[in-house]
């Protein structure tokens, strides 16, 4: 059928063919990779800032969630707030990968805290 070729894959979810939520999976995976890179980088930067400011225990984790919330807002703004033309649901931008950067955050947090306050 004209308009489809081998490299773009569509996904069918319901029975009625005229209003299927089909989307281009390859672009969607590329978008998910962009989100993952952005979140990882912001976790690292947040870790360095938490270490320099001298946050300990609970304050540090609260700061991590704050940085992740700011990143979520930034990603939503990058998608122009019309999330449905780039992702299939809001959860992808807001919740996906939220805890994935936690280990990187703690690593750079302890590293920066050690460099600035202890050594």
């Amino acid at each position, binding site marked *: 059928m004209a308009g489809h070729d081998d490299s773009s894959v569509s996904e069918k979810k319901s029975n009625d063919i005229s209003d299927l939520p089909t989307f281009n999976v390859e672009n969607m995976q590329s978008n998910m990779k962009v989100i993952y890179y952005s979140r990882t980088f912001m976790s690292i930067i947040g870790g360095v800032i938490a270490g320099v400011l001298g946050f300990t225990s609970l304050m540090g984790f609260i700061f991590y969630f704050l940085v992740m919330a700011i990143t979520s807002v930034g990603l939503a703004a990058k998608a122009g707030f019309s999330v449905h*033309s780039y992702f299939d649901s809001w959860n992808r931008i807001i919740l996906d990968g939220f805890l994935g950067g936690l280990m990187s955050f703690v690593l750079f947090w302890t590293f920066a805290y050690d460099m600035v306050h202890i050594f």
Partner: protein
Amino acid sequence: MKLGFFVGVLGVLLLSHAAYSTIQYRALLKITEDEFTGAPIHVIGELILGLVLCLWAGLTVPGKFLSILPDSDENRVVSLSSNMDFMIFNHRGRAFPAAIDLKLK
């Protein structure tokens, strides 16, 4: 893309300068035997500025968002590749309604 990269490098440099300022501030506190209650104001301002720059770089450098709607302008396929031996058209895409009124680009 390159501008975003340099903005990110600038943000990281600001953060390392803020870290160095805090180390010097702590050395000063050790001399006066005070406690570390919080970073000085200019260091906090520098950290916020570095965070904003790195946020901007972290959002623009990894790449653009690509549209996933199959009928948006950039997802249209208007010509087939020339290797026709392995192309089949007898797949599930037959079931989609044809958009016959679209013009060629």
